């Protein structure tokens, strides 16, 4: 009952807005080229989602469903996010753990990181294209860059801020430095690391859309820019909403992962 109530409350404002939007369009108050009606967007969204051909014999149902343009684009965007994010994570996590654990390394590298960190990943686009040309490589580079700094910075502070009492207790119980690192420092830093991962994947998703507008010719970012060329405003909006839904799904997934990995943590679960 409570869940149903909160669902109703959560849907009320979007439904009202949709109704107003539809009303404005039906009344002819706006140019449909500038703002198509929600119904038109929904219809276009359906076309965008639908497979272009009927299922052929021997084709699996899943392959058929995924032959639609929207799911092809979503798959392209998500593959880039996952690839770029993985590259960023694989570089940032070990480096952050090392920098957090070794104060001299931190002192040595911190100024450089502070200088590079405020440069938005998007500012690297010209350089990325010069270095990697067009296609997936510059996109993956930019996405990795977007994920790298939030993960790095959070991992460093996570490790550096491990309460020394845990280290003393572990040393007192005879744990080796390697055991302390894996069983004490890493889990103690995990809340910080995961919040970095969450920001990192959010940034990666932001960057993928921009990168696709510039460097590649598929994916959700490419598609909404392409739709502008044809004045398909309905498709632009359908694409934007798709991007929003995928972003929401990623964030919910991260939230689930957080809750699972931090189930010991006060204030979680």
């Amino acid at each position: 009952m409570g869940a149903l109530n909160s669902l109703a409350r959560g849907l009320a404002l979007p439904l009202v807005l949709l109704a107003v939007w539809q009303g404005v369009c039906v009344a002819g108050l706006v140019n449909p080229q500038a703002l198509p009606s929600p119904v038109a967007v929904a219809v276009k969204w359906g076309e965008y989602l639908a497979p272009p051909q009927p299922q052929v014999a021997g084709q699996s149902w899943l392959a058929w469903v995924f032959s639609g343009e929207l799911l092809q684009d979503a798959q392209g965007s998500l593959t880039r996010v996952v690839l770029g994010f993985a590259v960023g994570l694989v570089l940032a996590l070990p480096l952050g753990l090392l920098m957090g654990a070794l104060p001299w390394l931190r002192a040595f590298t911190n100024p450089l990181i502070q200088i590079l960190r405020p440069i938005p990943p998007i500012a690297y686009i010209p350089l990325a294209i010069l270095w990697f040309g067009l296609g997936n490589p510059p996109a993956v580079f930019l996405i990795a860059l977007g994920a790298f700094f939030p993960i790095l910075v959070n991992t460093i502070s996570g490790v550096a801020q491990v309460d020394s009492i845990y280290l003393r207790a572990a040393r007192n119980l005879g744990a080796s430095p390697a055991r302390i690192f894996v069983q004490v420092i890493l889990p103690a830093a995990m809340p910080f690391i995961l919040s970095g991962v969450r920001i990192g994947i959010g940034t990666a998703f932001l960057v993928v859309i921009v990168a696709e507008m510039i460097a590649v010719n598929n994916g959700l970012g490419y598609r909404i820019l392409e739709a502008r060329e044809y004045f398909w405003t309905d498709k632009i909006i359908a694409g934007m909403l798709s991007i929003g839904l995928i972003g929401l799904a990623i964030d919910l997934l991260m939230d689930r992962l957080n809750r699972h990995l931090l189930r010991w943590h006060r204030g979680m679960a």
Partner: protein
Amino acid sequence: MSTLVFSGVSQRFQTPGQDNAVQVLEAVDLNVAAGEFVCLLGPSGCGKSTLLNAAAGFVQPTTGTVTFANRLVTGPSPERGMVFQEYALFPWMSVADNVAFGLRARGEAASVVRERVDGLLRMLRLTEFADRWPRDLSGGMRQRVAIARVLALHPPCLLMDEPFGALDALTRRSLQEELLQIWAELRKTVVFVTHSIEEAIFLADRIVVMTHRPGSVKRDCVVALPRPRDQADPAFNAFKQEIGALVMAEQHAYEDAERRSFTGD
């Protein structure tokens, strides 16, 4: 017969960016016999926790030495198990995994670990909490887990830093009684830091009253009361008054020093 020996232990701490170092301990000489229960008693800032940290091997004295069982203390070791006021349980491990931590670090077989952990949980009446997170437990239960965690490694010596300081009076009383029972059964050497006069008299064979900064031994007195001790006993109270006068003199010195540092005199 002494097992834990402090000889001329002095400790100075230099705060980065400040000229004058703080002299926390000044030439402390103290012998603790095997199986003895010694309480270090004094006001805040008397260096009693620093002395305990030196015994644990977490800090090296600026001058002087600490030896345990005739060996120089140079670092932490499970033979001197530490119990912290803040429990210091690993919050990402279950109660059972916390208790098993030292055994696993020592490379014990899984069956040995399980048996030892089960026994300790039973002894400290924690069996039903084995799979819980520390955050699910009350302060008293958490401190029982911390005690079980150090006992797992059969330490001949327990170092306890105000272990019951954060607990309510009834829980505290109950843990004091349990600790005495464990001590009587296992004959550990115990060095117990407290600022509670009653607690010191209730628990200790010997009370070492420390002076305000720099900390040194002000009075080293045997608690001659028979066990189990009764706080309502007139002899208990007479002793409490005697010790109380000593400690309060140092407490006033501490408060005066704090006032001076605040007004900048």
